[in-house]
């Protein structure tokens, strides 16, 4: 799935709000998602369509109802693709420090023996 579609879908406060609501309670109908929102049913339908297109929301039928589920997989892909890189540097620095410190201990160890 295309990263651009995911970033575009996330670049909207209303859509992020819908994802937050699904995160709070997964598997909601359109009607349930609309409750207490300052958005028309049509607007919610449109936003859900964009979220589905980006694979951030999936749905399943239960009888006549269509239940919406948050799908965290594309967010994880992005996290690993973009954030993981920076994290890796920090971790590399830490593991470098650990190696340096352990090498010191080793030298000490050898001196002692």
């Amino acid at each position: 799935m295309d990263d651009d579609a995911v970033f575009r879908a996330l670049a909207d406060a209303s859509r992020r709000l819908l994802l937050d609501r699904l995160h709070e309670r997964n598997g909601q109908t359109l009607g349930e998602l609309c409750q207490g929102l300052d958005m028309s049913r049509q607007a919610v339908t449109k936003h859900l369509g964009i979220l589905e297109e980006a694979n951030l929301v999936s749905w399943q039928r239960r009888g006549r109802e269509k239940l919406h589920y948050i799908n965290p997989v594309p967010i994880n892909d992005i996290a690993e693709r973009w954030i993981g890189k920076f994290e890796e540097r920090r971790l590399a620095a830490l593991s470098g420090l650990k190696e340096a410190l352990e090498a010191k201990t080793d030298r000490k160890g050898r001196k002692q023996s």
Partner: protein
Amino acid sequence: MASNYVYVTYIRSTPAEVWSALMKPEFMRQYWFGVHFETDWKPGSPWKMLYPNGTMTDHGQVLECVPQKRIVLSWHNDWNPEFAAEGEARCVIEIAPDRGAVRLSIQHSMERNGAKLIEAVSGGWPRILSNLKSLLETGSVVLTPEAAGKPAAAKTN
């Protein structure tokens, strides 16, 4: 309301390749952080998920298995007593061709409300699916079991 999560990823691959990635233990170990399934995949047969040292992480029964399409498993957790006490979960894995790619979906659910097992796997499945997608599309995983402690390993693997 039951506890239910649905995870979906689109992989630039074929249903046959995605299926084989699920069936082959040596391939599975690469994207599933070292664990693998042990089963003959026949409906009614037991399945186990094992760490490399042979410790069982989870087990259950194969309820349905339609090659390249659908697997349904009953799921008992073994590594966490609190999750194990929650009883049986159900896992449905579905593979379908979709717009030149493959849509792989995993539904993990439990009858009870607020199941801790379902919450816990909600952190794991996205990482496994990202890894599988990356492995099939690029030939290498994004996260290895050592990735957290040894970032260099993630690069070279």
